[in-house]
């Protein structure tokens, strides 16, 4: 494990005493160096991550594009605070979703994990390394500042000692020795995920030149349009497939059949749970879906299709998850109602109840929607 970390002003905290063997914490100059070290270490077969917040993600963009296109695992933890710019650096938001999901120039798409609390953040941290190596691509662990920095009630963390790392498709010395065909960017299995080799695996086979420029499936430099298109289509296939292996959404069905749904994520959970109970007691029944990852699971589209109106509750100004759903799943925007809370304080059940009541009642006070009662 290699942990490069830009730590402005303060010395890097020493690792706990019991953790003496494994990790290297490298204090870096800036976020560009942090992500560069992550990419270099991952390329060379170690697991590595760095943690930052929105401005750091902005600085890392070029490297994130390289990791996406050259297909190098990278784990980035983003503690989301209020942006843009320095914004509200000590306050919570969920406003880095789009910047992370599509980080870097060109057509990119990155995996995001959206934990609801410290317990799930712990689970997803471990998972993020498996996912980054499975997908050979950057994976972002998106923490709202309210989870990442504030005190929060949590279940005790759990660890299964029998758990093994999932290193993904890494070609071994034995496979290379046996003469297995190695094309670094060759879609052997049809899932868009190629096989990789770790440097120094075999004396004469499996070496290749990693680069951010277009190459053919055997990693040779190419400016041929068909090589570029092959690669882009493969990357699309790969990231489309990510939706099925990343954490699936959690659905909480209303106690009665309803045509209203709500989608939320991250630190909104406690407020949402309270709001759902409150609304239910008032006769407003809503099915709830907590989205836990991007690219979206198939069930996100199915959930929206099964409801007449879906509220998307978020802690950012523009309704970023809603935009991503519309963009990725080609949903009619009119079906998704934006409900955003973004003043930097954690979202509350009162806000959610009030917003939902207001929307259901409509501007004129008349019910705008049929509500199952």
């Amino acid at each position, binding site marked *: 494990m290699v942990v490069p970390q830009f730590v402005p002003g303060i010395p890097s905290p020493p690792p706990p005493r*019991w953790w003496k*063997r494994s990790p290297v914490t490298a204090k870096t100059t800036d976020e560009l160096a942090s992500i560069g*070290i992550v990419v*270099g270490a991952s390329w060379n077969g170690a697991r590595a991550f760095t943690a930052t917040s929105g401005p750091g993600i902005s600085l890392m963009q070029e490297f994130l594009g390289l990791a996406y296109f050259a297909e190098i695992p990278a784990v980035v933890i983003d503690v989301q605070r209020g942006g843009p710019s320095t914004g509200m650096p000590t306050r919570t938001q969920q406003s880095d979703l789009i910047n992370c999901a599509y980080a870097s120039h060109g057509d990119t798409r990155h995996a995001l994990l959206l934990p609801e609390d410290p317990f799930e953040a712990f689970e997803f941290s471990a998972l993020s390394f498996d996912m980054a190596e499975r997908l050979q691509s950057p994976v972002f662990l998106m923490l709202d500042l309210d989870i990442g920095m504030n005190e929060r009630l949590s279940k005790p963390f759990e660890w299964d000692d029998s758990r093994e790392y999932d290193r993904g498709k890494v070609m071994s010395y034995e496979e290379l020795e046996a003469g297995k065909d190695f094309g670094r960017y060759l879609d052997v299995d049809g899932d868009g995920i190629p096989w990789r*080799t770790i440097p120094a695996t075999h004396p004469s086979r499996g*070496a290749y030149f990693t680069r951010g420029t277009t190459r053919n499936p055997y990693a040779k430099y190419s400016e041929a349009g068909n090589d570029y298109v092959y690669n882009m289509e493969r990357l699309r296939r790969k990231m489309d497939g990510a939706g099925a292996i990343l954490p699936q959404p959690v659905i909480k069905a209303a106690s009665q059949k309803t045509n209203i749904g709500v989608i939320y994520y991250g630190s909104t959970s406690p407020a949402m749970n309270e709001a759902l109970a409150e609304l239910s007691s008032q006769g407003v029944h809503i099915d709830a879906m907590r989205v836990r990852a991007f690219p979206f699971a198939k069930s996100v589209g199915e959930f929206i299709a099964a409801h007449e109106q879906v509220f998307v509750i978020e802690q950012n100004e523009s309704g970023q998850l809603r935009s991503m759903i519309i963009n990725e799943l080609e949903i009619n925007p009119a079906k998704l109602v934006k409900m955003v809370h973004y003043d930097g304080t954690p979202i509350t059940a009162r806000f959610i109840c009030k917003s939902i009541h207001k929307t259901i009642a409509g501007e004129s006070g008349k019910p705008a929607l049929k509500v199952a009662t």
Partner: protein
Amino acid sequence: MTFLAKPKLLRPDTPRNELGFTRRDYEGAVSTLCAGCGHDSISAAIVQAAFELNIEPHRVAKLSGIGCSSKTPDYFLGASHGFNSVHGRMPSVLTGAALANRSLTYLGVSGDGDSASIGIGQFAHAMRRGVNMTYIVENNGVYGLTKGQFSATADKGSKSKRGVVNSDSPIDLVGLALQLGATYVARSFSGDKEQLVPLIKGALRHNGPAFLDVISPCVTFNNHAGSTKSYEYVREHDVPVNVVQLMLPREEITATYPPGSLHRVTQHDGSVLLLRKLGEDYDPTDRLAAMSHLHEHEAKGEVVTGLLYVDPEAQEMHEHLHTVGTPLNQLQARELSPGSAKLAALNDSLR
């Protein structure tokens, strides 16, 4: 450019090194740089150095940034993994790779634009951090890929191909490397293979950050009268401080030198640098003297070459960080995971 692929068949008397490899085993793809480019001579010198050092090609990792120089890792050591990263950021990628596996040989190839302009921050920090690497800057004073604009190492007063005189002060990477704590600092010239090959060999066997600034004329954009990075200018103003020879631990030193004319520096791995003094008494283990010697001669428009500084006792990043001896990329889950009992204790401490 058209070329004839080299035949795969080898003559029976083709020279082989101790591992049985021929020079061909250290070569790479055919260069796409301009004919006569200094960079191709440096690639050839790298091939020669790796061949003579009996390096297993697959145990080298070669990394670069962006630019003409950064394309070259494709043209040597074809059996090594290579990484052409982003502009000016090779040092961080190499640092990460070196952290992941301390047992490989790391070669970073960069250019003057890549290291003295966009990447000067990362260059500086790789040097001061003590990354165990050979850092070669193929220095031609111009951006060749984008048609010859001055780079940050272009000398003040140097003339561009179109006659524009550079008015900005140059960044001297050798001076910076000395100041920043590099423990092997050399300068050479792509046109002087006899000097360059032993310097690369010494760098590859050095334990710590080894920096080599290689003046490498750009035949297309910076090889005219008035340029201070042309073949002609460098040949006329080259002031070498020593003649270097690297002896591997088991090699016998047979040549005899008059007493007092030789510096013997034994490196960490037992290899011996034999430095034959030229002219004035130059001590390559004195960092301050190296800096003042460099500046004195540069003020006269001279190009100081040779092994300028070496610290045979140098330590590298892994020693500073106290990492385990096993390469980190070989540690398994059972070694890395503290386990559920430790986690339970951690949970309890937070109640």
